[in-house]
């Protein structure tokens, strides 16, 4: 851990006060760090959006049902013993786990990893655009909702605004985080500084210049935001991004998701007040040659599982504060298509990982794949509205009870995934 309390006080505190920053959140942070209960040790929700619609039936196939095998002659996998080491992992006799998701299996066995199957949106759209939109705003069927549900989570938490309260490791702010509450989108935390390529001396002067300008401007929004900004820059300066070494031998994949989760772990450990983090995993739109134990799906799944594994390992004792949840806009057709892939479907599944999760269980109701049970005769139906999962997570992990404001117009009940 790069930034521990001792180091912070030694390196951070003095320099900070001499820089003449006001009595601000960083100072309080420094003070808080001397207290037994750290001020900024907050619950954090880390979300991973799997863009493109993950095939929930390949990630977590039902094992006691041979319809899947018949409808997917090229894609179905076997949990049979003879199938070699890449066979589907048996979760509970009823469901399996794709072998590339194997790194997550220990968490399932420990009871930390829960799965919700046949989840999704009540809206039948099969458009990525619309479905992602609905999932991120939390208002299926309604496009004009101006805020994202994660932004509303942040508002309902109502904690003091700190620069890194809500963070997306994406080039642009995702719809989930649009709204009244401040949120940052950045792909590389090293960008988060006053910078001129290769001219650090000049940069430093400029930084000082801006600080004094914004400190004294009469426009209060600019002034207050700038105070936060320079604090955030200062914090990151202390974290020393390049020297960060993941703890407990965690090894992040060198993928976008791996890099994102690595930076999220860094911030969680730095105690900067991170509460909502958003990362993306792309490439789940497997229309063609989806593959089985190898191939497109397996590569994506492997990246997802290894990234989460590294993150969870790296967190160490911070796991107590963190919940990881995946989401994806819809599932894919039960039947494989002519190109060795699957097309846009309806229900899919998601993963929830946390110390207090009622794990080792497939939650929700999996209706089976009989012809008559399928949605529009072709897809896994949605039996669990994603809002009941999100509301359950917001309530159980973050303590938000007001699901009426979190999901306007929704009349369902939160799903409890917690023991």
């Amino acid at each position, binding site marked *: 851990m790069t930034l521990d309390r001792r180091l912070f006080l030694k390196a951070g505190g003095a320099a900070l006060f001499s820089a003449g920053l006001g009595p601000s959140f960083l100072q309080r942070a420094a003070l808080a760090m001397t207290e037994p209960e750290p001020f900024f040790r907050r619950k954090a929700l880390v979300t991973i959006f799997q863009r493109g619609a993950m095939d929930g039936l390949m990630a977590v196939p039902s094992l006691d049902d041979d319809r899947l095998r018949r409808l997917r002659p090229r894609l179905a996998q076997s949990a049979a013993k003879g199938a070699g080491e890449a066979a589907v992992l048996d979760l509970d006799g009823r469901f399996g786990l794709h072998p590339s998701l194997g790194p997550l299996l220990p968490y399932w066995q420990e009871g930390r990893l829960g799965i919700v199957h046949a989840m999704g949106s009540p809206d039948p759209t099969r458009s990525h655009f619309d479905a992602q939109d609905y999932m991120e705003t939390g208002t299926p069927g309604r496009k004009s909702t101006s805020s994202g549900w994660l932004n509303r989570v942040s508002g309902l938490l109502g904690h003091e605004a700190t620069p890194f309260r809500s963070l997306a490791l994406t080039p642009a702010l995702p719809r989930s985080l649009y709204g009244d509450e401040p949120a940052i989108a950045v792909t590389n935390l090293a960008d988060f500084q006053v*910078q001129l390529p290769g001219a650090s001396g000049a940069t430093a002067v400029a930084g000082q210049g801006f600080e004094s300008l914004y400190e004294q401007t009469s426009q209060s929004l*600019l002034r207050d935001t700038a105070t936060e900004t320079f604090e955030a820059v200062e914090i990151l300066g202390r974290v020393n991004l390049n020297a960060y070494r993941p703890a407990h031998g965690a090894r992040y994949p060198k993928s976008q998701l791996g890099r994102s989760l690595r930076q999220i772990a860094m911030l969680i450990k730095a105690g900067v007040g991170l509460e909502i983090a958003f990362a993306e995993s792309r490439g789940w739109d497997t229309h063609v040659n989806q593959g089985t134990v190898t191939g497109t799906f397996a590569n994506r799944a492997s990246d997802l599982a290894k990234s989460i594994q590294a993150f969870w390992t790296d967190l160490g004792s911070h796991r107590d504060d963190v919940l990881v949840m995946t989401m994806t806009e819809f599932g894919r057709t039960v039947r494989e298509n002519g190109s*060795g892939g699957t097309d846009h479907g309806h229900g899919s599944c998601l993963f929830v990982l946390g110390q207090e999760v009622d794990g080792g269980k497939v939650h929700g109701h999996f209706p089976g794949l009989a012809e008559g049970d399928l949605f529009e005769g072709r897809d896994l139906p949605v039996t669990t509205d994603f809002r009941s999962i999100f509301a359950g997570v917001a309530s159980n992990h973050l303590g938000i009870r007001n699901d009426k404001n979190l999901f306007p117009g929704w009349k369902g009940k939160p799903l409890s995934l917690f023991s």
Partner: protein
Amino acid sequence: MSFMSCNRLYPVGVTFVLLSVVFTSSLGSSSLAPKRPESPWRDAGLTERQAAAHLLDRLSFGATPGEVDEVLSVGIERWVEDQLRGQIPDPRLARRLRSLDALDLSAIELAKTFLDPGDLLRQADAQGIVDRETLLGLTESGEKGEPVSAPERRRTIRRLKAWAESQGYRTTKEMLQQLGAQKLLRGVYAENQLQEVLTDFWYNHFHVSTSNPRSRGFVLSYERDAIRPHILGSFRDLLGATARHPAMLLYLDNAKSIAAEGMPKTFDRTERAGRRRGFAGSRRQGSSESRRNGGRRRARLSGLNENYARELMELHTLGVDGGYLQKDVVEVARAFSGWTVLSPGRTRDRAEGLYRRTSAGNRRGFVLDELFFFRADAHDAGEKVVLGRKLPANRGIEDGEDVLDLLATNPATARHLSRKLAVRFVADDPPGALVDRLAEVFIQSDGDLERVFRSLLKSPDFWSSEARRQKIKSPFELTVSALRALGAEVADPRGSLEWVMRMGQHLYAYPAPTGFPDSAEHWVNTGALLSRMNFGLQLAGGYVPGVWFDLESLNGKKEPESISDALETYLSLLLPERDITNTVRQLEATVADPDLARKVAAAMPDSRQSDAALGEFDRQARLFAGSSMNESTNPFSEFEQGSFRAPSPVAQVVGLILGSPEFQRR
């Protein structure tokens, strides 16, 4: 010479000779008028210069060097009239836009020319040029696909490309690049600035997002054909043009909204079964979309879609508290059922032929107008009640048009739009009395946008000290105003557009139909503010690819005597008629202390000095600079060689000014 960026010379001497020539003749008329014309800015206690600077802040994207004087030489009232008329000849802009050939193509030509890669491949497949499945299979690593060699794949792609080129096909992405480029170039260079400001405003009001794959191919035509011609015309015309445009019909799903099952139709296909099929296109509407979205099967159109109806009232006209009910949403959706798009293709060709051959009286209510298609066979012909007004049964396209009439003249609409205009042009929280007055003019003038705008300009609120400098520039406004203030030459707009995005504004791509919120709170947040400061520094330091300027020329080729002198000089050049005393005082110590740089640099973590600490963007910017410009014009060759040069002190001062709180305001 110390402060001149050596290879960033560009003559900024091009001025507004034309302007002054054109208007010299008319200068006298107003001063000869018997009584002094009403002058709200004088009443507000502004000097002529202050008034001109304020106008340039609000009716344009910011003052160019010396522009305050140019406004005065034309005369303020005259300048405003010219901006309202929007007819100032602009050959300089035309020259800059010349290479953007998509701007001259009709909506239909655009749709035929610019395709998404998937559609391109489907076309090629249909023509037997390549085999789609095989080619797609090749791009994946699945072990069950036919093993085809890499050279074969390359050959196929070459064949595809050659074919696409021979057919004149290009990618949607290229069109969107041209769309962004024209927006930036017009913002920086257009003489008729108000036209650009209002096009920006009304586009945002009737927002269509390029993040939606269905509508993105039509957005260029949407802005040009549906928005731009009507920005100072009748609101009803503007509303009607957006309602019929394919971008809107596809974006808000009205294109797939058809009468619910069992409802009477304007033209009932089943009743006339066996006679003739009517207009063929309708049957396969949206089939390419269905392939994309739902796999093999043809999309089943499944009844009413309320999206457009709801947003039409909530966003475009009445406003969220405009007094409509869910019942009205459904009724309005029924009124617009059958309003759809007939995209280019064989289906369209057949339908178009049939339509043209059929005499007007015999078209059974079908209407084909460019890409807009009214499907009488999908229109709910039952009686409707919208906001208490009855729409009789057995009609067709008139239902939708009547709804637009109703909404355009509703007082809630007048208020909603007046408030939005006041927010944009006066303050984030404009005085209620001003909104009332504008709404009154809107109602009395039957939604004449020019009259509403004129009354806004006449209002004391527009000129009040509470309003001046109170708006925070959007990232686009900030970027364009900085380029204008520097008199910059934008050889390639992409580097600047990248910064607009980085500061939090993905142009044309706001993810919701609301458009970008017009408030300081939306634009000013921790991440974005830092980007704004960095933008100022990097622009002034010459690090924004594709942009050149000459700081010395800005100051009449004079080198400031001292750094403090530079500070005052450039502040008054870049922020004309602003009170700069505070900024000078605050910055003076920083820029003048020779020890400061050393002191602060010593306190900086080492990581900031290493190349590894360079942001992703800067790494990309370097690559980008290399790829987008040829050697002789590439001002960033130093980057390529890896030798960095600290910006000159004057560039540094200018960077601080552009990144300062004062420059964020307008």
